[in-house]
């Protein structure tokens, strides 16, 4: 199926680029080449929206895979793993920039439920990967394990990702160099917060004073 789904995704992207609107039905995406698999496709994609979600999902997965393929990945710290993911993701966005720009910015108002659904699917994919990275950081002590708060680390990085996507799609600097810089800076900020820092000592002190 993966061969076919790649083709249908490509066909979806091309449709948006050439018509500057979303296709109304899956039927309009089936080119002569895909005619043989028509039944299969219609079964798989009952809704045309699913294709768009799948493209986003694939993009995130690709970025995680590419960063894991980095020969240095095994020895990377959490900070570097996140940097590596975001750099790769920026490349994914750049490659299909027009599509992502359209998809991220143009939604008819009555499609909000679709958007919510898409965002929760993507968030799940994202967290599945990021939580693993964070957990490994907690084991090595790079990331502070904090009562209640550490459950939300993944969510914080998810919002960071949304910010970076927005920034990247509207970045007009040469080769999107500004995106590289915002990635470097925002990851550093977040990691400075996640790492054991003065708030942990302050918490321990407060706890001590309270107990005694």
């Amino acid at each position, binding site marked *: 199926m993966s061969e076919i789904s790649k083709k249908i995704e490509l066909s979806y992207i091309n449709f948006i680029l050439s018509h500057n609107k979303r296709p109304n039905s899956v039927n309009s995406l089936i080119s002569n080449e895909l005619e043989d698999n028509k039944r299969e496709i219609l079964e798989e994609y009952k809704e045309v929206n699913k294709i768009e979600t799948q493209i986003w999902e694939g993009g995130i997965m690709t970025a995680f895979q590419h*960063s894991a393929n*980095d*020969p*240095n990945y095994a*020895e*990377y710290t959490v*900070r*570097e793993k996140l*940097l*590596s993911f975001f*750099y*790769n993701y920026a*490349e994914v966005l750049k490659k299909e920039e027009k599509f992502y720009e359209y998809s991220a910015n143009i939604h008819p108002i009555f499609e909000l439920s679709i958007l919510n659904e898409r965002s929760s699917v993507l968030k799940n994919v994202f967290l599945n990967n990021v939580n693993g990275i964070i957990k490994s950081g907690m084991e090595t002590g790079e990331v502070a394990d904090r009562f209640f708060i550490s459950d939300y680390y993944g969510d914080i990085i998810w919002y960071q990702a949304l910010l970076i996507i927005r920034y990247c799609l509207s970045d007009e*600097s*040469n*080769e999107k*160099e*500004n995106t*590289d*810089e915002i990635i*470097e*800076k925002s990851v*550093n900020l977040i990691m*400075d917060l996640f790492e054991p820092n003065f708030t942990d000592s302050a918490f321990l002190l407060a706890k001590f004073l309270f107990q005694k």
Partner: protein
Amino acid sequence: MSDIKNKVQKSIPSTKTQRVSKFVKVGAKVSSNYLKHYAKSVIDSSYDRKKALDEENANDVYEALSELKGSALKVAQMMSMDKNMLPQAYTDQFQMSQYSAPPLSLPLVNKTFQKAFGKAPLEIFDTFSKEAVNAASIGQVHQATLGDKTFAVKVQYPGVAESVSSDLKMVKPIAVRMVGLNERDVDHYMEEVENMLLSETDYDLELKRSISISEACKDISNIHFPSYYPEYSSKKILTMDWLEGEHLNEFIATNPSQEIRNQIGQALWDFYDFQIHKMKEVHADPHPGNFLFKENGTMGIIDFGCVKVIPDLFYDNYFDLMKIENLENKEKRTQVFSNMNFIYENDSLEDREKLDSLFTSMITILSRPFQHSTFDFSDDNYFNEIAALADNKENQKLLRNSKKPRGLRDGLYVNRTYFGLYSILHDLKAEISTKSYFFD
């Protein structure tokens, strides 16, 4: 190689506001240092306020500049060349900036490689150092190996080209204050600096120049150049052979013999003389970080990012007065001073005379090495003489009060080159033959 492991930098301030606030912070620190030291000197009369103060200020300024990287660091390097312009303490700190600035993260380096070659560094080389082994002013250097070869791979910081202009705007008021230059002069020269800095961010150009200059200079004895590898180079990456050798200060600390010092000094002189008078384009970045000295009296030369092409018209005027008979000929001298924008037609008669004698004595002193067949650069008296001329309050007042820039801007980098050359030769305490192609 300097150890920069414990200085891994987490961020480079890159937006204009961030950068400005950096400078503001330095300003505040410098003034609080003044207060502190003033107070100390009131309490303790033996306390050497001036020196301690300079040292502390230099530390703060260096800290801020090294975080800014890019062009600000470059300006720090330029200022560190001018030993006479800055108190010694500033100079020592800035000399540090020539060797080390905090590095960028490995994922970003890997990404730059992916972009340029579609491969990670480790897919091209057998080994690739995880951390930068050295910082160049607008990039950092990693060590890589492939087979039995060792490479130096220079990777440029992102956004450097974009930040050149805005950095210079911010450095300007500092330069005006610290170096005590006239603001008009600074404007006049800033454009030249900007162009040179922009050309330094173009590694394609640097690659071309490195290859052509090292080819042209290959017959000069006792110097060598790395080979360059276009196949592993791009707009942001420059790969060359790894050269062994020590930086100037380390080299001098090993107490090389006078013979070795003279031999290296001679090679340096020949290298510059050939470029200026034969090629008319010169490696205009003679700061000690670009030379790697070896025990046997040879020297490797790297970094052709900053190459000044000397225009013919400027060349003719600039060197005309090196011939004593021209300098002593009043008519000829006046003509050249006017061509060089040293003296303007509408300067008052009194000023013209003062300026004439100032520039004449300046040229007499600076061209002295050329007037002898050998010259001993270890001679402190010679350098004190230069310093005295620059420190002379009356001369400074004369130049500062004049409403016009004095000197063509092409002179900026040529002067800097000679100044750097003299200063390295002085540090080497070399006595050399100062034969020049100019007199051939």
